[in-house]
Structures are given as C-alpha cells and as structure tokens.
C-alpha cells in the first residue's frame, strides 16, 4: 500500500495522532519557556550558578531519549502516558532555551545597560524595557531549536503509551511496513519544517526591527 492511500483512508486517525503529537509538543514547550527563560535570566544575575544549571541541562540532553522516557515512568504522578512524555520533552527543551536566554542577555551592550541605570531605571525596568527586548531574537532562536528537537523526540513518546505520530512509526518498524513508517514520519517532518520556518521568520523580523 502507498503511504498517501493509507493516510487518506485513515484520515481521522492521522489527524488525531497529529493533534496528540502537536499537543504534547506545545505543552512541553510552554513549560520549558516558563521555566527556562526565568532560569536563564537568573543565570545572568548569579553567574556562579551558570556551570551548575547549564551543566545539569547539558547532562539531561545527553541521556538517550528512550532511556529518559523510561526513567520517568516510575516517578510518582507520571507513569505510562502523555504526562511522562511531556515532562521528558520539557527537560530536553530546557537547555537551548536557558542557554539562549543567558547568552542573549549577556551580549547586550554594557554601555546600554549603564545608561539605563544612569537614567534611573530600576533593575526590573532594565530587564523588561532593555535586556529582554534586546535579546528577544536570540531567545526566540533557542525556542526554535527546542521546538524542532521536541517535535522529533515526541515520536518516541509512543513507546511509553503517550500516542502521537510515533504510533505509526512503531507499528511500521514492527511490520515492517514502509507506508506505516512514512505515515508517522512524514507529518512529523512536515511539522518540524513548518515550525522551523515560521519561527525563523519571526526571528528574522525581530532582528531587523
């Protein structure tokens, strides 16, 4: 059977798995942004913590994804299913977001910060009016990398019963059936390409302001 015939016949299921996939990725990224950006900002204030936080995020990144999913299953409140998948995806997404937030803010021209202080801005005003807007393109680049990683890694979530497009891939591997592999891989790849292009465009817009 041809992959397109298969997808056409199973439109409902393809759509459902795609939405599941997208849902996991979206929730994980939202969490990673909510955790990662404040952490990155904190690192610019307490540079001594940098090696610990970035080190930890780096270590997480080196754990093979299937193993990370596996490690999280016994954790209370997680178990088998999408919650574990979301936590794992969040952990993976953290590193690029923390790192880029830190780097983005650290590269803001010191003279600009000094003049902001000199005109009587408070620490919070300097952060929100100067540092964050000036580092937004770099932060967004981090989110973009994290998004592409998350879309790819989320295919493994099917292994722990979290659904998503990985379902087709696992069934395809077990088959082995190429059209099933492709029914999972094609939409996931397309999703990654679209996310990368649109976030890249947004980044470009911010840079050229």
């Amino acid at each position, binding site marked *: 059977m041809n992959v397109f015939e298969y997808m056409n016949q199973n439109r409902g299921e393809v759509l459902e798995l795609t939405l599941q996939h997208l849902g996991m990725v979206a929730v994980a990224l939202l969490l990673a942004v909510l955790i990662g950006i404040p952490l990155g900002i904190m690192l610019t204030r307490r540079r001594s913590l940098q090696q610990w936080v970035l080190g930890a995020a780096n270590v997480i990144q080196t754990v093979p994804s299937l193993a990370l999913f596996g490690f999280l299953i016994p954790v209370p409140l997680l178990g088998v299913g999408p919650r574990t998948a979301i936590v794992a995806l969040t952990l993976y997404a953290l590193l690029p977001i923390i790192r880029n937030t830190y780097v983005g803010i650290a590269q803001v*021209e010191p*003279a*600009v910060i000094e003049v902001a202080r*000199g005109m*009587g801005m408070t620490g919070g005003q300097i952060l929100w009016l100067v540092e964050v807007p000036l580092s937004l393109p770099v932060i967004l680049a981090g989110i973009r990398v994290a998004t592409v990683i998350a879309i790819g890694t989320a295919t493994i979530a099917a292994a722990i019963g979290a659904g998503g497009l990985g379902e087709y891939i696992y069934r395809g591997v077990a088959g082995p059936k190429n059209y099933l592999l492709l029914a999972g891989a094609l939409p996931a790849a397309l999703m990654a390409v679209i996310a990368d292009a649109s976030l890249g465009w947004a980044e470009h817009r911010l840079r050229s302001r």
Partner: protein
Amino acid sequence: MNPQSDDEIVIECREAGFAVNGGRELVRSLNLEVRRGETLILLGRSGSGKTTTLKLINRLLDPTSGEVLVEGRATTAWDPIRLRRHIGYVIQEVGLFPHMTVARNVGIVPELEDWEEKRVQARVQELLRMVGLEPDEFAGRRPRELSGGQRQRVGVARALAADPPILLMDEPFGALDPVTRSELQQEFRQLATRLARTIVFVTHDVREALLLGTRIALLAEGRLVAVQTPQEFLRANDPEVRRFVASLGPLQTEG
C-alpha cells in the same frame, strides 16, 4: 576655589576617593565644588579618573573613601533611583536604546516617572525641536537610522526630558567627525546658557574644555591638579596644565 562663595553649591566632593577591588585608586581625595548653573569641565587624559568622578555623582559608583554631596546630601543617603532621575546623563553615542524609536528614547524618563501620555508626547516634540530635529521627520526613526550627530542630539534631548537640574555628560561629542562636533559644541554652548543647568562635562579635548567650560577641573592619575576658568587655565604654570595647553599647538597659545 573659594569656599566663602555666595554661589549655591550643587555638587560637592569631599576627600572623595574610589578604589577598585584590587586596591588601585582611580580617584584620590578629590575636593571639588560645582556651583548652580555652571558648566564644569572634567579634563584629563585617558585613565585620569574623569569618568569615575562622573559616576560618583550619579551613584553608578559609591565612593570608597570620603563623600560626594548632591544638593547638600551625600549620594549614599539618596535613593539611587531618585538621585539618577534628578540628573540627566549623556554618554558617547552607544547610549541610545537601539530597539526604541527616537520619540520613545527621548520620552523614556518621563514615562518611567508616570507622566501622562499626552504630556510625554508634547515634551518629546518640544525637546526634539530644541535640539534641532524636526519631530515629524525624526520621532519615528530608530537610532541606527540617524547620523552620529543626530544620535547625539537625541541623547541630549533624552537627558533633558524630565527637566533635571543637573546634567552629566561623558565625552558626548567624542565620537563625531570634527565638523559635526564643532557644530554641536556651538549649539550646546547656546543651549547651556539658555537652560541654566548645572553641568559636569567630561572631555579629554582641551579645545572643547576651553570653549564650553565655565571652569575647568584638570585631573591627572586620579588627582585634581587645578580648577580654573578657561582664561586662568591658558596662563597657568602647572606642568600638566602647560602640557594640555601646549597640545593646542602654536596658533592657539598666542591668544
């Protein structure tokens, strides 16, 4: 210096010193008074402590010895935010916020001070005209769409926005080409007279010091060498002053 002077003293350094962590002193036992409405020039070579002295005034640095008084109160007794909003600050061209329009750059301090939107707008227009930039043409531009001279004009407008009685300027015209610099110096001189602000102006350019200063404070290696009017400065015998005067070249020293 005459401590019995009737002129009101706005800024006063009393034995003020600043040492970095390693113990190296950037400014040593500095005694200096700035009177209301004057333009005091801090002149000196690179590393003579001019910029450090300026930062002691708006509390970007706290003195490690002695004290600096602004309007009779030690800077360390001021809330740093209040103190800085009381003092306009202009530095070399990098100081504009690149992500904000000219109008927002100029209006930022009034905005921080919670002025009404309309009042901020009106003030921005007034200031842009004052520094010679037509608001309709320039208000919406970004700093990178301006020439160096225009950026510096915006910097001056921004420092004046909330009407601070004191203005600190750190080599504001240093990065400009000679022609533009000369234009801005002339305009600044008129503006300073008209506005009657107390201005402390850092430069390493003697010519600029002589042109703009009511008095010139010469610093060398963190110490105050002399405080003099431009006329006294040209006639002084101090060797460091002579070196600066000599740097003007033969034409100027004859005057």
